[in-house]
């Protein structure tokens, strides 16, 4: 029965990992840009939920659209007026640029929200579903549900809307997409906006499940790396698979091995997967990737 509980816990936290990683994956896959500021953006989303909840008492799950909207505008402006202006720079220079952005955001988060560790306790925090000896808290279930809904929404958006198709076309071949009338600069700005929006919404979910402070962003960025590489760059189903695998592996490792070996196992797994199958489980080769 313990085993079943561990499986369920692993799946539930895996869903959250997937939702944290998906924005990171979209930006990387489409623009060949590793957004090191992703962690700080996620934490910014968590703080938006925290302050809305603390000031108005609104349910944390209802604040998801607000943090998404704020981060979308932020991401759109950053890409349009900052990153989009750097044309000549190499891929690595862009990495350093987002690192600089991360330092700036983390400092601003620290000044605005202080370094105190925050958490949200909704009224239903202690309640949950009881199935025999199996226990599923409502908050974790809610987080899992929203994480999957967001991912599904993004998948449908990419598949069925004109903009989604334009983004996909740009990710395969930005020059060719430009030739058939896609405004590549605008698509990049929107993609970065969407990626940031997803980061903000994932942040709202984190605030319900974990306690957080401005410095916790780096850990989530690290997890996003593992999830994206496990599942495959830019692949939405891949991010879900990667998130669930990481969640399961972490929870199983902490039960069957000493908990302190958890990190060791997950990074050995990362290197092994990279060496054996660099494209991840569901990965296809993207144009952005070919250019590198």
């Amino acid at each position, binding site marked *: 029965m313990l085993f079943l509980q561990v499986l369920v816990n692993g799946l539930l936290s895996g869903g959250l990992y997937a939702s944290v990683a998906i924005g990171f994956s979209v930006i990387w896959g489409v623009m060949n840009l590793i957004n090191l500021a992703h962690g700080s953006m996620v934490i910014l989303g968590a703080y938006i939920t925290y302050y809305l909840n603390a000031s108005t008492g609104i349910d944390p799950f209802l604040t998801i659209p607000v943090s998404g909207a704020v981060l979308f505008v932020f991401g759109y402006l950053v890409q349009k007026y900052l990153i989009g202006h750097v044309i000549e720079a190499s891929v690595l220079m862009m990495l350093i640029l987002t690192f*600089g952005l991360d330092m700036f955001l983390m400092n601003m988060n620290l000044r605005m929200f202080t370094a105190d560790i925050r958490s949200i306790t909704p009224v239903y925090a202690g309640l949950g579903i009881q199935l025999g000896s199996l226990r599923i808290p409502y908050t974790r279930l809610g987080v899992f549900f929203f994480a999957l809904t967001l991912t599904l929404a993004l998948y449908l958006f990419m598949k069925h809307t004109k903009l989604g198709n334009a983004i996909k076309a740009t990710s395969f071949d930005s020059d060719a997409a430009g030739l058939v009338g896609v405004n590549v600069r605008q698509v990049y700005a929107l993609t970065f906006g969407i990626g940031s929006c997803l980061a903000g919404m994932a942040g709202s979910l984190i605030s319900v499940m974990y306690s957080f402070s401005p410095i916790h962003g780096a850990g989530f960025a690290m997890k996003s790396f593992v999830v994206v590489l496990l599942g495959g760059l830019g692949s939405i189903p891949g991010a879900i698979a990667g998130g669930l695998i990481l969640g399961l592996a972490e929870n199983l490792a902490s039960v069957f091995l000493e908990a302190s070996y958890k*990190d060791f196992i997950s990074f050995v797994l990362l290197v092994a997967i*990279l060496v054996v199958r660099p494209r991840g489980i569901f990965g296809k080769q993207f144009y952005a990737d070919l250019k590198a």
Partner: protein
Amino acid sequence: MQISRLNRGDGLRRAIFGLLCAGAALFLIFGPFFLSAYWLRILTQTFMFAVLAQAINIIAGYAGYPAFGNVVFFGLGAYATGVLVVKFNATFILSMMVGIGICLFFTLIFGLPVLRLRGHYFAIATLGLNEATKALTDNLTALTGGGMGLSLPLIPGDVETNSRFFYYMFLGTMALCLLVTHFLMRSRFGYAIRSIRSNERSAEGMGINTTRYKVLAWMVSAGFTSIAGSLYAYWMSHIEPAIVFDMAIAIKAFVMFLLGGAGTLLGPILGAFILETVSTFAWSHLLNYHLATLGVIIIIIVIFMPRGVVFFLQERFFLSSLVKKIREERTV
């Protein structure tokens, strides 16, 4: 005709540049006689980061393999020294040699599979190697002291002599690293790894054993990083896995290397001096916003000098290199 006249102007500029370099070298050699303890310490740390940045330059700048997790060799060097000195009463020099040996072995074992990956994938694989090694060091408590870390014996003698000792040790390592890079890049090895960066397949087609040279380049890089780690352990006299395997060290060295100019001899050194100076200033004057200040400066540099400071200066002060750049762009 026009170009040769431009070149003549460059001769004068080259002479000025040479004098500036000589002046800087003299300043650094005689620094301990007139600088305060505060600045000596900052300079010592700058030399250390210059070594780390130059080591990254060898594998990432010249060979084109962005070894993001190079800090693993810093940690391995520091722990080789720490463990050997504390648990086995070894001398510092011996422990440093063993540290280098461990790092060379590490690159040989992991270099073969990991150096098959390219670009981002290689960068992240090296990051994974560092995190895994860090977690292992954290868990081997009997040998490494685990999360509590290791305390090395204090060096006898007064504080001033010791700070001068480490100043010159790091300065010497930086100079050695610079010399070795300079001569290596003029050798067969240097041409081989630069051809790998330009086009690995063509290099292989020309008969270069690319695997061998890639592993060798990573070995040179690992060796210098390990020396810096060993010295650091002795300098700080206390090491912890979270400190010596910290990705922040790697990222800082990487920023310095890119800031200065990838694949240039003086770029990483220049980058180290610029970033350390700015960061010292930000710490002492804008304590609450020092991260943000550094972040903004990095962003500004990437936007205005996307190829690094060295190329930026070259194109402005050496007209011939500008002419060369325009020619290259025309032929492409």
